[in-house]
């Protein structure tokens, strides 16, 4: 057995068998002994991945249990580890599998979040959480509520009020809306992010002292004024020089477009220092560039340069930098000033509603792992982990790592094996805190002393040869391109990170893929939209035809995945496919997408929601219209002006609208779930086969809603307004349909064919106002502060340039990684669409299509696939490899058996809620008539007088009676007991049976109220309320007859006792 290294880091490029590696590693630990699995924690990135990992482990164990196979590398590996024979390995696998299946709760494969949640729950008391708390996932709506709360405070807090008014005015002056709520929400959301949390202590400290903010503002304001004044002076100075030399700006080179005209822009209050282009900067230093050779004013211009105009231009740059610095800080100043309030409100809300924000889990866990030794944590959690296997490590956040590290180090220090798997190239979750540098170098340096094995998994098992080779070549070219461009743009070495991340880009083709004899296919088409179409319209139009072609090559819908960047692109694609008629076929393509199949697209769903709204508010005319418009859509009818003008439905449906209104009154009384069902029925939507998945989706929404919230209509409608639009139809993965998903969600998945229709996004997209937190300590006048800065190009020329550079670098890496993930999902075919642009219009790598364009026209390095050679510049298509050559006979679709039933039948038809015994009248006292019945029930249950009191108490504890009623009932019983006969029935000296059943032959039973066994006789007593009746006597006689048959040696006497009157009748 080879010596064990406790810590393994696997760097796993796409398709390199990561799951296989993890599974093998898991089994190596789990097969040590049958219970070893309890000490392993495997951490995956998503819940779905958790399921898949569990399934995979079970499948492998099952396989090995049946037969360990020496030809399988995994089995060989495992057998080698303990020097086992195949049968012995099978034996071990069998035992481990059994152990797992029967202690399934200890089978720990989980997401990092759910593991953290578990630990936090175990420490709830120690970290001062309440015993019961809810984990809140929807942070956006939390922020909305916080801002609402903040705005409510405005009325009572003049400072806050003033601040917000200033903010509004400031916004108006910038040409924005006066309503700042959205701005506050947008920036406010940052409080949930790790970037903010890293600096939150400093920020809190800064904001706690109100003077700090005040002095910062006045400082910024003064400094800005200063710059403006300086600029104005410069302008005056320049004009003076010009005038002195009798020059006009138009005299300079370039005439009315001369760069010297920038001087006129000096002092503009919004941007006092005009920005010079790179070329202008060079010009400005060089008097020869100030005039044309033929200029008559050559000497005057030259003089102007030397008399100060040249020097004046050299002042632009530093002053602009100062301005940019000040301006960047002012941009978010107002919201920043509110952060203290926001955090305060957040605390308040959390306390009131007893919730734990999902984003806080990391904070709490950090404090737990910092405060406790690992053993104590395990004691509290009840699970002792000795091995950790961490997947997708490149997306682990700094906080997560910090929380995890103590546990991992604890394990390593005991010499236990641990494993980390990841790929820097696939780190695309930076926006969620993913910190790829951890995998790149930090973890190694922090754990090196325990002994470390870093392994690069360099074979691609996923894709066919041409796909692998294409990606090798494309990404080594792209990474060089990006690195170069960054170095150029941002300064020396900035591109190095990219080169490091992509150092091991070249993958080997696996033997298995090689041996298939299929090359695989890559196609990139540069698409030029015909006006007035824009690119995305053109791509949307092209897609269905692409799928047609794929189908003709023998692919099935489920083989195809369309990857996009944004959710709305997914939705557009889904719409395009649903509207597309396949040539020569009745059917349409089906799509599956978490991002696109929104419930609210369905007519049935819209119809029902309108109906619900109308039930909630019958005066809602808009819903009244919408209800029937959608209803008609679902029924494939079209409503004309008759409907819109007079509200009448066409024949034969007319009248339904009236029935609906008549029913509203009844409908409103129904519980929410029943209401929905009733509406479905009333509107005749149960027959709508087509949209069943959507209808089910709506029902499921209500189902989930009712489970967690106040189950009334008004709350549901509010919830739907806020959350419902995010709900999509869920379909099982096995469904034969085209997948549409975002690149983010595609991570870890693979598909036969990958279509990439929108290869056009911005490499470094600042449109969404990314925020960075950067320190400022430029001036002694203000205490050092960390501020939120909106990332804009201008930052590069400011005191915050380092922050900009970092952001730019990481964004470039994000884009490159995103492309990498997208291009490496394919097993057989990659087919991408790229917007075409005239080559000369491409300057720099602004967008992904620029990147691809340049990559295809780039010389490649030795041994790489020459992409250029495969690119046909006429057709603008890169074509590589070939279509599969297998028999493309169309596989018949499996005829699915419909085993579901949908017919509605109100539950009240088959079932009734039982009338609860007892009722109340206006005074709340239990009505007289029921009083007798109450006594009856009590007596039924009690053998003795003591019992009666106990039962009475029980009734009181149940809440059925109050204290006074209890006293009354007891009194009534006492009165009855004054009759000796009655009293004897409750005498514990006799054997007393209450409600003793008598089994009747052939089923059925009787229950006389009371049997009292006195010497030689049995007394049967039946208590009654209400009027005396002969049938009562017959009943007692019946009992007596039965008892005589059972108790043959005893005399039987019967009694009837009327409880209200106290009258006792003896029956013989």
């Amino acid at each position: 057995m080879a010596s064990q290294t406790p810590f393994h880091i696997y760097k796993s490029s796409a398709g390199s068998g990561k799951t296989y590696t993890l599974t093998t590693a898991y089994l190596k630990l789990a097969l040590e002994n049958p219970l070893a699995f309890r000490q392993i924690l495997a951490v995956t990135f998503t819940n779905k991945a958790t399921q898949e990992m569990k399934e995979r482990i079970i499948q492998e164990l099952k396989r090995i249990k049946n037969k360990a196979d020496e030809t399988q590398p995994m089995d060989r590996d495992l057998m080698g580890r303990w020097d086992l024979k195949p049968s012995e390995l099978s034996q071990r696998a069998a035992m481990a599998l059994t152990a797992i299946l029967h202690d399934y709760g200890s089978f720990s494969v989980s997401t990092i979040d759910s593991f953290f949640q578990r630990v936090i729950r175990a420490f709830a008391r120690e970290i001062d959480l309440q015993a019961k708390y809810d984990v809140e996932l929807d942070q956006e709506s939390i922020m909305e509520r916080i801002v609402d709360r903040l705005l409510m405070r405005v009325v009572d807090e003049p400072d806050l009020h003033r601040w917000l008014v200033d903010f509004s005015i400031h916004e108006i002056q910038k040409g924005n809306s006066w309503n700042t709520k959205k701005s506050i929400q947008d920036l406010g959301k940052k409080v949930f992010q790790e970037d903010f949390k890293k600096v939150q202590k400093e920020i809190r400290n800064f904001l706690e002292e109100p003077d700090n903010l005040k002095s910062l503002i006045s400082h910024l304001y003064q400094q800005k004024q200063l710059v403006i004044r300086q600029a104005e002076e410069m302008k005056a100075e320049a004009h003076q020089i010009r005038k002195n030399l009798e020059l006009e700006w138009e005299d300079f080179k370039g005439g009315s477009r001369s760069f010297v005209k920038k001087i006129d822009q000096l002092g503009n209050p919004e941007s006092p220092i005009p920005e010079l282009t790179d070329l202008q900067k060079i010009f400005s230093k060089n008097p020869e560039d100030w005039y044309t050779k033929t200029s008559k004013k050559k000497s005057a211009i030259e003089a102007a340069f030397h008399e100060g105009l040249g020097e004046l231009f050299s002042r632009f740059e530093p002053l602009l930098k100062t301005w940019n610095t000040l301006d960047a800080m002012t941009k978010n100043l107002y919201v920043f000033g509110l952060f203290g309030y926001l955090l305060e409100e957040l605390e308040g809300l959390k306390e009131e509603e007893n919730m734990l924000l999902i984003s806080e889990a990391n904070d709490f866990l950090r404090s737990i792992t910092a405060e406790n030794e690992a053993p104590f944590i395990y004691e509290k959690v009840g699970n002792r982990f000795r091995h950790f296997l961490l997947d997708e490590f490149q997306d682990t956040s700094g906080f997560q790592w910090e929380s995890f590290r103590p546990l991992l180090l604890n394990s390593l220090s005991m010499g236990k094996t641990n494993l980390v798997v990841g790929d820097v190239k696939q780190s695309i979750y930076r926006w969620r805190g993913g910190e790829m540098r951890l995998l790149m170098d930090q973890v190694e340096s922090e754990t090196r002393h325990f002994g470390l094995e870093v392994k690069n998994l360099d074979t691609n098992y996923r894709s066919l040869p041409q796909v692998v080779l294409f990606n090798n070549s494309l990404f080594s070219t792209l990474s060089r391109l990006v690195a170069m461009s960054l170095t150029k743009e941002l300064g020396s070495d900035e591109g190095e990170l990219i080169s490091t991340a992509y150092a091991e880009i070249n993958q080997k083709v696996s033997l298995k893929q090689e041996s298939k004899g299929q090359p695989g296919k890559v196609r990139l088409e540069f698409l030029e939209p015909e006006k007035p179409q824009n690119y995305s319209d053109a791509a949307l139009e092209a897609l269905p035809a692409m799928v047609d072609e794929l189908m003709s090559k023998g692919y099935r819908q489920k083989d195809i995945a369309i990857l996009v960047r944004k959710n709305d692109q997914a939705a557009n694609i889904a719409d395009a496919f649903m509207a597309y008629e396949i040539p020569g076929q009745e059917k349409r393509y089906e799509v599956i997408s978490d991002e696109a199949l929104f419930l609210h697209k369905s007519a049935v769903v819209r119809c029902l929601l309108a109906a619900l709204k109308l039930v909630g508010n019958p005066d809602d005319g808009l819903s009244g219209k919408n209800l029937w418009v959608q209803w008609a859509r679902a029924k494939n009818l079209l409503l004309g002006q008759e409907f819109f003008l007079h509200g009448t439905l066409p024949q034969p449906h007319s009248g339904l609208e009236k029935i609906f209104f008549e029913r509203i009154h009844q409908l409103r009384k129904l519980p929410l779930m029943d209401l929905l069902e009733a509406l479905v029925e009333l509107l005749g939507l149960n027959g709508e086969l087509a949209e069943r998945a959507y209808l089910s989706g709506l029902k499921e929404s209500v189902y989930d809603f009712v489970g967690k919230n106040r189950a009334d209509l008004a709350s549901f409608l509010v919830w739907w307004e806020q959350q419902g639009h995010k709900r999509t139809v869920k379909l099982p993965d096995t469904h034969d349909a085209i997948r549409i998903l975002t690149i983010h969600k595609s991570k870890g998945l693979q598909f036969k064919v990958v279509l990439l229709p929108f290869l056009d996004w911005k490499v470094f997209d600042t449109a969404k106002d990314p925020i960075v937190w950067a320190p400022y300590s430029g001036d002694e006048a203000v205490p050092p502060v960390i501020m939120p800065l909106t990332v804009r190009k201008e930052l590069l020329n400011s005191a915050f340039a380092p922050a900009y550079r970092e952001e730019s670098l990481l964004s470039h890496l994000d884009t490159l990684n995103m492309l990498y993930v997208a291009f490496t999902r394919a097993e057989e075919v990659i087919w991408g669409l790229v917007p075409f642009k005239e080559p000369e219009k491409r300057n720099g790598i602004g967008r992904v299509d620029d990147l691809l364009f340049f990559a295809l026209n780039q010389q490649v390095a030795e041994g790489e696939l020459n992409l250029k050679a495969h690119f046909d510049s006429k057709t603008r298509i890169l074509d590589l490899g070939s279509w599969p050559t297998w028999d493309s006979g169309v596989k018949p679709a499996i005829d699915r058996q419909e085993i579901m039933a949908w017919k509605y039948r109100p539950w009240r038809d088959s079932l009734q809620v039982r009338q609860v015994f007892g009722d109340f009248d206006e005074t709340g006292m239990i009505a007289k008539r029921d009083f007798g019945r109450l006594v009856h029930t009590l007596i039924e249950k009690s053998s003795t007088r003591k019992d009666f009191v106990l039962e009475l108490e029980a009734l009181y504890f149940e809440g059925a009676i109050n204290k006074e009623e209890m006293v009354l009932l007891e009194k009534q019983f006492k009165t009855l007991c004054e009759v000796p006969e009655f009293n004897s029935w409750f005498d514990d000296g006799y054997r007393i049976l209450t409600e003793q059943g008598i089994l009747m032959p052939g089923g059925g039973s009787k229950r006389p109220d009371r049997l009292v066994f006195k010497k030689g006789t049995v007394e049967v007593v039946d208590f009654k309320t209400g009027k005396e009746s002969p049938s009562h006597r017959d009943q007692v006689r019946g009992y007596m007859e039965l008892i005589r048959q059972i108790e043959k040696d005893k005399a039987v006497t019967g009694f009837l006792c009327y409880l209200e009157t106290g009258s006792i009748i003896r029956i013989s």
Partner: protein
Amino acid sequence: MDSFLKETAKTLLQSKGDLKGVKVILPNRRAGLFFVKYLSQMADKPLWMPEVITIEDLFYQFAEKKPADKLTLIYELYRVYQALTEREESFDRFFFWGEMILKDFNDLDQFLVNPEKLFTNLKEQKVLESDWSFLSPEQVKLIREFWASFEGRDRAHQEKFLKFWDILYPLYTGFNAAIESLGMAYGGKIYRDVATGLETLKPIEEQLVFVGFNAFTTTEERLIKHLVNHFGAEIFWDLDTYYLNQPEQEAGLFFRSYQKDPILGPTFPERIPNFLQQHKAMIKTYNVPLKINQANLVAGLLEQVKGEENWEETVVILPEEQLLFPLLNVLPEKINRVNVTMGYPVRQTPVYTFLEAVLELQRYAKMEDGELLFYHKPVKDLLSNVFLTEMAPEFSKQVHDELLRTNAIYFPAGKLREGGEVFALVFQLYTAETIMDYLLELIRALAAPLEEKSMERTYLYQCFKQMNRLKAVFDQEIKEAVSVGFFTRLFRQVFAESRLPFQGEPLEGLQLMGVLETRNLDFKRVIICSMNEGSFPPSKSMDSLVPFNLRQAFGMPVQEQNDAIYAYTFYRLLHRAEEVHLIYSTAGSQGQVGEKSRYIHQLQIEMEHSGIQKDDTLVHVPVNLTQAKPIQIQKSPSILRVLERYTDSPGEGQTATSFSPSAINMYLDCRLKFFLTYIAAVEVPDEVQEAVDPAIFGNLVHQSLENLYAGFIARKGRNWVEASDIDGLMDYISPAVEKAIRAQYFLDEDATLKLTGQLTIARDVLQKYLAGVLEQDRLTTPFEIISLEGNKKYATQLPVTTRSGVRRVSLSGIIDRVDRVGTTIRLIDYKSGNDKKDFKGIPGLFDREDKSRNRAAMQTLFYGLLYEARHPENKSPLKPALFSLRDVFKEDFSPYLREVLGPGKRQEVNDFADYREDFVGELTRILEEIINPGQDFDQTDDLEKCRLCPFSEICSR
């Protein structure tokens, strides 16, 4: 095959002949019902029915005590806890911890743990002293391990843990003493007392028979052994060789240990059945996409059942009880009887949701100047709630409308209380002292008008009972003042568990039940839904303050025991079934994925017989979508008739009306929107706007400026404004704005003006805007005000050619302000948005394809037409102007329109006359189109326009 209970009944009857003096103990009452049914089926003469009870009943009978309710117990616990700790923890905060502590105390009593030993702090004590010898070496090891984790540095969390740990023993003893003195008890305590006092037990005359037990607590085990040993109690076990003989099968965990026990062992049957393997039941597994679809699948499976059927032999088991109603609502017609054991959850009844809303209202109450106010959202919800609308339909609607009209964010309670008794009770300020009485009173008032046997009344009565109980506990036991918030939480908790039983003959028809109710019952056909991890078996819920290792060391139940119990429940269902359907769903909640239950894995991997389907059946739901068709409204005679209203001959019985610039703009934006708004007159419902929306803000802008200058004219008695007037006008800004706000929200002049946060900001912004406008006006002084919005409506008509000849079409509009500067007449519109002043020629103003069409320019030029019509004598140039909020502060502000002639070339519009011809031409063209019967009202292609359109729903956009 006979069911276990039937078999047991038979054996019992055969061996005893007579059942007098027999007491049968079963795990739950439901099993008892079935047991008696079987007995009676077998009786051939009248027989005494044996007493059938549960094991709890048995303990309570022996102890002659019943446990007190949880709330009281937790309160007592709290009192002792308070006395022990200096830390002030409110009852609110303590409650849920108390629940957990009480559960732990229950456990340790039930399992006869020595609390003193358990709660010892062994941090400093490295060695366990000799009196720990009652523990096995493994147990000692676990305890050592636990306390060893305290070695190392001192940490804050450990300190906190210890501090709490140290009081648990005194808390236990103190609590026990306290409740004893009150004559109360809790479950565990009763069990412990019975189990430790066996010697004092009175001789038992009855023949005790225990049927169908699986797992005993330590106290139960001790009692039962005693009864077997000394009183010849009998035990009938319901078990199977399959799991008994395989040590890894958790379902057999308890049986294996009982089998070895010297007392219990002999009670096992000689031949243990081997149903699971011999019987070869058909077992199928289904995978369904949504939870809700499980109901459809069950219905489908039931539908497939052929021929006459004894439905009571079929059970549908619902581990997630919420699935009950979806299932009940799709049951096939042929199922005529259903028996449900689960009960209707009170928290889903309208009554409950109403009460919850009433309580929630309290969170948003506030007192201002002695007046009680409620936040508008919950008030609105309540007003539309059926319970209030039923009570006073008129009143509810009236208040609801007033709420919308005045845009009241907070609404006075006094007004709300005028609706009658129920209203008076709902819109009260609840305090800890009054809350119960108000709620009870409210429930009564709600019930009063209802029919006696109605469902609602039953719901209400259930709530009443629960509340009464809560009130009693609070009145008599709990002296603590609790917050309304806590009460609400408690209220929710009480009702979360509360169920209304269903009517029905329990032993007939299709059986629907939860997992635990299936104990001891056997069915021919078993359908189990929610076969998902987390549902069956349910997710871990070992909430305990006693750490895992200590629980284990002291023999308190841990997850292992829990797992064993559930596994047994599952496998037992398969004992005698012939047909088993297991259904799970891949949808989870809250972003989770549904994971299939371990039991399915176990069956598919481990059980080998022909009946088991090894792969899941995937169930498919069709996913097609009906495309939205374009909506196109043809101009029918009736529509044409409506359109006549806009002409000089409005048609008989119709009121004449006219096109405003906004109508024209809307028509240009989208013909359908125009149709829905102006022809079909579809009303868009109002909302209370917490935020001041742009439309309202716009109104306020207009109104304030109107007030400002109208006030000026009234005060000064002249309508020209000079530079020296501006400073004076500045002082009137604030009242002008305030007046506008009052008018907007229909507030009386003397009503105190209470503004919301957003509105106070809006007010200040408005004031600045007005100041900005005045500054601009200062630059144009002197000017003469010709008209303000107040004397307003300008109108004209344009001849338009129609099929039936030339008709005059009416136009009208309100000009915010008309003034004269020098010789120029300015037609001014105030804008709160960011309207541009540049436009690309007159045709561009009417070009619906142009995405940046300048609506404001169209509108102000339209005013030119109107002004001319009123003042045909006018010779002065007419100059349109826009005062837009977002520009007015700019240094280079100019309100005048500019026509864009080319790149960088703009020309200011100085006189409407220069544009009149083109403008009228274009406008006439549009009007012709509107009137033209051949032009349908259709939807715009530009989806961007649909984003904020209230009718986007109708268009499915």
